[in-house]
Every structure is written in C-alpha cells, then in structure tokens.
C-alpha cells in the first residue's frame, strides 16, 4: 500500500490526462502511469490499477455522449468486446507475473511506439484500380456479417453516413491483443483498436472513436476488477484522480474547438519520448 501521496500532483495528473485525452483522442493512461511512477514514486502496479479505474469513468462519459448521437456501433462494440475481455484478463495476470522493471521497460517501449504513430506523416493514396479491386472482394466477403453495418449523422458534412464493417474476425483477433496491452500496461488499448477498426475493418473514423470508447468501458472494467482484487487500487489515490480526469475531460471537450491540435500533438509527443527514456533509464537503474 503506498504511503502519503501529494493530492495536488494527483489532481494535476488527472486533469492533464482528461484534458489531453479528450482533446487528442488518446487514452489518459500514457500520462497517468509515468507521472504516478516517476513523480510520486508509486509502484507501477498501483499506477496501472489507478490508471485503469480512471479510464473506465472517462470511457463511460465519452460513451454516454457518443451513444446518444448514435455514432457508436453498439453491435460491433459488443462483438469485439467478446475477445477484448479475455485479453484484458490475460494481460492483468501477465502483469502480476512480471517484475516492475520489465513492466516499466515494456511501458516505455509502448510510449515510444505511440509517439511514433502520433507524429504527422505524409499519406500515400491507393491507386484507383486497387480500391476498385478491394471493393469487389469486400462485397463477396461481406454478406454473412451485414448485421454489423452501421450509420450515423455527421453534422460536419450535414449528411447520414452509412458504412459496412469488413473483416470482423481480424478485428476480434487483434482485439484480444488490445485487451492484453490495456490490462498489462494500464492504457486504453485504443492504440490497437482504433487503427484496426478504421484501416482494416473500414469503419469511418468518427464511428471508430465512438465504438472504441465502448470497448474501453469493457476492457478497463475487467482490468480494474483484477487490480482492485489484488489490492493495487488505493482509495486515496483513485478518488482525486477520477474526479480530476472527469473534470479535465469535460474541459477538454470545451477547449477542443479553440486549440490548435498540432501544437498539442507536438507537446504530447515530446512528453512521451522524454518520459519513456527516463522510465527506461530508471528501470535499468541508470537514473535517479
């Protein structure tokens, strides 16, 4: 059980996690876990447990908004959760068997990967014949899972967007690994689910993000239960964290329209790279 912790650092961490989480669409876990371990000196298992609990409330809040606007593909979310939940259980048990330095190094590597993914890149457009060929294959493959198809109203273009869900089996297989990563490292798992749903399953980005928040509810709930049962969730840590993450997320949603996301992404990327280096050095006993 961790001793006395600075409530202001906790509140500040939660606020930053909620703020950046809602403004950039990233999980707060990549901020909460390193700050709790580096600034407060908490064992990484406590940091992961606390992070998971705060992501549950963040994900539930986001889901309540997205589902009201019908952007969430409920059927797809429930289907993918069928493999995400066992993945989350496997990840939490795996974390219990790993030592803190190993877990810290894996976490630092994930941070570097996310920093790389978030860097702006030039996109290569597929050739027209490639997309046409892909369309024909998709039509043939599609019929058995037409019940997963979705639609939503997009106010930005003022029209209803209908879409088909492709390759749900691949989504379910990768979903399992998303669950493992989520519980193992205390992050949302969206870093795996979002690209898979958007790029491979061809779900539009807005519906992907909305459905991903529903997935987070299930994965982080499962992970939280395991960490709480093992005594890695301390009330005096999670209470200020949950409240500040919630407030940060609400504030972020308001500020999102007024802030330049490129600046935020740069700050976030620099934070991820620096923190991952410090975490790695600490794990290898080369730092402080």
């Amino acid at each position, binding site marked *: 059980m961790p001793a006395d912790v600075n409530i202001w650092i906790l509140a500040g961490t939660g606020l930053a996690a909620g703020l950046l989480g809602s403004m950039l669409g990233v999980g707060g876990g990549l901020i909460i876990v390193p700050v709790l371990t580096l600034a407060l000196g908490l064992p990484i298992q406590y940091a992961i447990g606390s992070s998971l609990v705060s992501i549950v409330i963040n994900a539930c809040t986001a*889901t*309540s908004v997205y*589902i009201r606007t019908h952007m969430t593909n*409920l059927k797809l979310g429930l289907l993918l*959760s069928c493999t995400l939940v066992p993945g989350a259980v496997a990840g939490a048990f795996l974390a219990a068997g790993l030592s803190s330095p190993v877990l810290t190094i894996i976490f630092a590597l994930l941070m570097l990967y996310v920093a790389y993914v978030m860097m702006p890149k030039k996109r290569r457009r597929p050739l027209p014949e490639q997309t046409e060929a892909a369309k024909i294959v998709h039509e043939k493959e599609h019929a058995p899972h037409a019940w997963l198809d979705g639609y939503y109203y997009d106010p930005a273009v003022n029209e209803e967007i209908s879409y088909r869900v492709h390759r749900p089996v691949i989504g379910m297989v990768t979903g399992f690994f998303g669950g493992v990563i989520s519980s193992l490292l205390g992050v949302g798992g969206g870093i795996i689910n979002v690209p898979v749903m958007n790029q491979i399953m061809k779900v539009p980005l807005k519906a992907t993000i909305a459905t991903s928040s529903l997935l987070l509810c299930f994965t982080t709930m499962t992970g939280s239960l*395991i960490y709480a049962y093992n005594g890695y969730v301390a*009330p005096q840590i999670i209470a200020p964290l949950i*409240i500040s993450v919630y407030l940060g997320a609400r504030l972020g949603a308001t500020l999102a329209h007024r802030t330049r996301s490129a600046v935020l992404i740069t700050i976030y990327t620099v934070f991820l790279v620096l923190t991952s280096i410090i975490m790695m050095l600490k794990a290898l006993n080369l730092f402080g």
Partner: protein
Amino acid sequence: MECQIDSRHEKLHSLNRRLSLALRAGIAVSLLLIVGGLILYFFSGAPHTMALTPVTSLAPGLAALNPAAFITAGLIIILLMPIAVLIMSLAHFIAAREKQPVIVCIVLLVMLAASLILILK
C-alpha cells in the same frame, strides 16, 4: 420492408438514448459518492493509507460515514456501468428478435462471468 427497417432503426435509437441516460445517471451517482468520500477523508482524520472496503462491509461502512466505503461504492457503480449497458442491450435485442446480437451479448456475459470467477479464484 423499408418501414420495418425504419422501425428497427427507431428502436435502436431509443435504446441508444436509454443507454446514454443510464450511463450519465451512473456516472453522476458514482462521482457524488467519490466526492463525498474524498470530503470525508479530509475532514474525518482518516488514516493516510486506506484500502477498498469489502462488499460485505459496504453498508455498515456507508452508515458509519467511512470515506473508503464511499469511494468503494462509487467505484463499484462505475464498474457496473458496462454490465448495465450489456444487460439493457441484451433485453433490447431479445425483444427485437435479432438473433446475432443476442448471441454476442450472451457470449460476452458468459466471458465476463468467467473472468469474475477466474479473478475470485
């Protein structure tokens, strides 16, 4: 046929609205309990380190204004929210006679129950 699809979409929208309402209500209650627990923690001179209250001691803990019991109750409500979403969805899909989503909901419910059993073991 078109009319049938429209009615199905309308029912799904109604489910979405109910789910959103349930989630917002759950979050509000949970946050109230957690804020209450935090206030009690600061003003009751509770020990710096607290553990979550076991479910069996939750009611006496709440009655005794134990901060850990309040925070634990808030946490339990948050963790129950996804299960509430699942049960409400299952009831909807059964009523709408949509076979595949019903199977998915049951499988997920079984997965969650199995996870719970595994955790408690």
